[in-house]
């Protein structure tokens, strides 16, 4: 479906990554495969470096750090936030909502809506769409969208298909009403019948975590996982992405009355380099227009990959006067795929910062 909005803009984006860099070449001993075979994957998939948060740091901590950075360095007034959205698969607790915890820590006013959304790969676009809908209401003028995940703790360290690609991160985007009345159209589709192709089997009510669910088992191809770990049907997810994302791009461009050449950058979710190169080819655009360097530098951090992609690759261009046309698209968990075209110039904040623990 397509939702249409008017007069909305992102004023600030900050991405937060842990300081700790973990390198694929130093992790090769974790896997049951010959070293030379693992090294073959390095260039093809973009396995290189990824960021892993310290054990006692949560996704919410990184989001809090990013928000405080905006307050301390960019003059954001916490009292101006009318709604807070926290999107993650790795909340601090099941109860209460992490958005409530953050509302307290960030010192937001009581006249403020708070909610958590359990979402992943498409989570940044899902969050933008929620923010736009909230901003349609009189009384809501500024929304803080917080995305964060610590996926490194949800995948098995002995699973070479998953561990090298994931990274931990958080991000904060500030969204508000603007006088620019150009329409913003948000495309979203859901395919719940395939929802379990990407899942963490245990840990919820359907299958509570027990000693048994924590036991690592060879899944048949030399990778070891437990039922507490993230698992995905790789070929099915690949097939879904290659089939639906190019169609979504075409539909978004049609709605906007644009051609592929009109888009300066296709800022896509970052599963791995291989998939993004194949996707660029299938969409029919130059691979230069589809940045694919986030996995090799930071890892796939779920809904945070789009903010990291923007702040790592496009800072100079988005803070300039020149208007840049971006097509953002997320796809994966759900299965959900969603996207939109945004024109951005003179953005207040577009920064990638490293998380540092405050010494209290």
């Amino acid at each position, binding site marked *: 479906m397509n939702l249409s909005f008017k007069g909305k803009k992102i004023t600030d984006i900050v991405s937060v990554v842990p300081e700790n860099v973990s390198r694929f070449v130093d992790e090769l001993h974790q896997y049951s495969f010959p070293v030379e075979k693992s090294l073959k994957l390095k260039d093809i998939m973009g396995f290189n470096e990824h960021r892993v948060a310290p054990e006692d740091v949560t996704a919410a901590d990184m989001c809090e750090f990013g928000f405080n950075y905006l307050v301390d360095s960019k003059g954001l007034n916490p009292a101006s936030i009318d709604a807070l959205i926290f999107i993650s698969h790795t909340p601090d607790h099941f109860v209460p909502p992490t958005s409530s915890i953050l509302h307290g820590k960030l010192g937001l006013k009581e006249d403020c809506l708070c909610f958590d959304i359990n979402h992943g790969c498409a989570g940044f676009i899902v969050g933008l769409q929620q923010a736009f809908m909230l901003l349609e209401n009189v009384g809501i003028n500024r929304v803080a969208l917080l995305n964060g995940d610590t996926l490194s703790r949800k995948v098995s360290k002995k699973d070479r298909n998953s561990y090298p690609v994931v990274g931990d991160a958080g991000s904060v985007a500030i969204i508000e009403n603007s006088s620019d009345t150009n329409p913003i159209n948000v495309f979203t589709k859901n395919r719940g019948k395939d929802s379990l192709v990407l899942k963490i089997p245990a840990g919820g009510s359907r299958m509570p975590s027990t000693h048994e669910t924590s036991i690592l088992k060879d899944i048949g191809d030399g990778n070891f996982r437990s039922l507490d770990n993230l698992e995905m049907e790789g070929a099915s997810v690949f097939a879904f992405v*290659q089939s639906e994302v190019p169609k979504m791009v075409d539909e978004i461009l049609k709605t906007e009355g644009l051609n592929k050449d009109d888009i300066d950058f296709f800022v896509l979710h970052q599963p791995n380099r291989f998939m993004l190169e*194949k996707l660029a080819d299938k969409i029919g655009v130059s691979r230069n227009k589809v940045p694919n360097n986030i996995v090799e530098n930071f890892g796939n951090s779920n809904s945070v990959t789009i903010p990291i992609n923007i702040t790592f690759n496009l800072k100079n261009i988005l803070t300039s006067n020149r208007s840049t046309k971006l097509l953002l698209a997320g796809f994966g968990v759900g299965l959900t795929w969603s996207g939109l075209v945004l024109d951005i110039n003179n953005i207040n904040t577009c920064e990638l910062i490293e998380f540092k623990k405050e010494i209290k």
Partner: protein
Amino acid sequence: MKELNIELADILEVESVTDDEILNSFENWDSLSILSLTAFVDKNYNIQISNDDLSDVKTLADIKNIIAMKN
């Protein structure tokens, strides 16, 4: 679909692959080679192969059957 045999031989780093050879007997038949072949089929035939499809695949002939069925 002769090009599939050539592509798969390339992926598996062997001289040639026949339709009936057991894929599991190749040293390089692993998750990466499966993904590479899936991507080739997607690009050249615009056909998407899922994990369900792959569960019964033993030979290249099985993959050719999937392509023929989905075509």
